[in-house]
């Protein structure tokens, strides 16, 4: 199969490697299901099937062209933000403001697409942050004001602002982005974040004993966290030199950062869901829950990875 024009070769090989892992996971799941039929393995096989769909959609989105990729990332962000707004208590008077908040998504992704660092960085934390309470004030309903403005601002930050860093990575200049361009950086971040989730889950299932945050996420263990961290450092060090401008030791470090940030994102979204008394944020992806359940790790990993890259690698410090 010829490599699509304009796609960095390394991205193509990385995607081929991911499909290799996926095939392996499908075989392992089929064997487990045969040996041990039941609800547990059914759930596992639903998850793996969903992975096939998600990875294929993601692959198509990033190999087509940068506009398609950015629109795809924006749409994913829209789904996450919509899930968030659907779960939290909202006020009827704020409907119009919520509509404006939705409109912040295309604006933020256009700034990311333009690779305009200043606009990208200020639009939500400064302008939307000032705009939302201002409109609520002008509408004039003060009951529940603090809760409404607090939950809306946090939601915009944790979904729209945090996830838009993925589009910002994609837009990185070719001179600083490394051997596989922005697509390579995005693939490195997303693949490692998702790999870390799976690795943590697997290590936890196999060796999990000591609970790490029992009140928030009772199934998470130290063994799972550390196993995931070690696996992701190794994978980062292997994949980094192909997909990023980083030498293997810094790439391993980046893998470690992604693993820790991913874990923190995961438990932060868990805390939010637990506060609202829901288990899954939605029912969009069979075996996984909603879109917010799938991108929870990315809400922390994307900004942390992007800003580390921006500070150290893009500016030529390393």
């Amino acid at each position, binding site marked *: 199969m010829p490599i699509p024009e304009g796609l960095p070769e390394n991205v193509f090989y990385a995607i081929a490697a991911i499909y290799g892992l996926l095939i392996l996971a499908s075989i392992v799941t089929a064997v487990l299901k045969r040996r041990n039929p039941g609800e547990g393995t059914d759930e596992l096989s639903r998850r793996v099937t969903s992975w096939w769909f998600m990875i294929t959609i993601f692959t198509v989105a990033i190999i087509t062209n940068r506009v398609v990729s950015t629109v795809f990332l924006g749409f994913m962000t*829209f*789904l996450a933000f*919509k*899930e968030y*707004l*659907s*779960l*939290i*208590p*909202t*006020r*009827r008077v704020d*409907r*119009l403001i*919520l*509509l404006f908040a*939705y409109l912040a998504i295309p604006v933020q992704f256009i700034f990311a697409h333009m690779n305009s660092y200043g606009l990208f960085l200020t639009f939500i934390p400064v302008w939307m942050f000032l705009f939302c309470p201002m409109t609520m004030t002008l509408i004039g309903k003060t009951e*529940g004001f603090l809760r409404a403005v607090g939950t809306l601002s946090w939601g915009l930050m944790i979904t729209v602002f945090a996830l838009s860093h993925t589009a910002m990575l994609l837009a990185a200049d070719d001179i600083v982005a490394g051997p596989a361009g922005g697509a390579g950086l995005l693939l490195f971040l997303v693949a490692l974040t998702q790999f870390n989730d799976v690795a943590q889950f697997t290590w936890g299932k196999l060796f999990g004993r000591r609970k790490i945050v029992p009140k928030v996420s009772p199934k998470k263990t130290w063994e799972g966290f550390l196993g995931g961290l070690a696996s992701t450092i190794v994978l980062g060090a292997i994949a980094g030199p192909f997909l990023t401008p980083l030498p293997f030791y810094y790439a391993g470090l980046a893998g470690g950062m992604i693993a820790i940030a991913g874990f923190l994102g995961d438990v932060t979204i868990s805390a939010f869901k637990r506060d*609202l*008394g*829901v288990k899954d944020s*939605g*029912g*969009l992806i069979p075996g996984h829950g909603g879109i917010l359940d799938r991108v929870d790790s990315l809400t922390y990993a994307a900004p942390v990875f992007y800003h580390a890259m921006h500070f150290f690698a893009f500016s030529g410090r390393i």
Partner: protein
Amino acid sequence: MTRALQYLFFLLVVRPVLLIILGMNVRGRENLPQKGPAIIAANHNSHLDTLTLMALFPLKELHRLRPAAAADYFLSNKWLSWFAKNIIGIIPLNRGAVRKNPLADLETALDKGEILVLFPEGSRGEPEQRADFKRGVAYLAKSRPEVPVVPVFMHGLGKALPKGSFFLVPFNCDVIAGEAIKWTGDTGSFMGALETSMNDLAAEGHFQPWE
């Protein structure tokens, strides 16, 4: 001809909007009737309710779904009336009219094996707040006691498009179908069973307030 238009409207407009802008979480899908005659009894928050309930069924079953709707509202002008009758397939009900049997058209539809979509609250009312159920559904169940009545609780559509609003704000909606209930023998206990079932379904969702 109109059946083709109905099919296309649901395929090209209703389903994409529900999938992309709104997004549905459906629970208890197995409780929905496979074929008529049956009655769907749902709470009412928005004009989107009817479309959402109809979209839960396969496209080829669309023409068997008959929402009962107020004649004074939906037949008030020529265009709306054509749309409501042909594309949605409503059975017009005369609110407050004096007739021998106000439910006659609904009974005929059940006898033809169709699935009725009823909103026992009567009107959309305040969004995301339940109003008392009217007893019409009980009289219908009494006259056709073998027909299953499936309670369906919906949440979120009143936020997306409440009564009196013209712009649609994206929200995910939840649709929870409960187990079918049948005529219990008297109106009071039937309405009680329906209310209880609705309350249980509403509690299942852990929904946050909307004030």
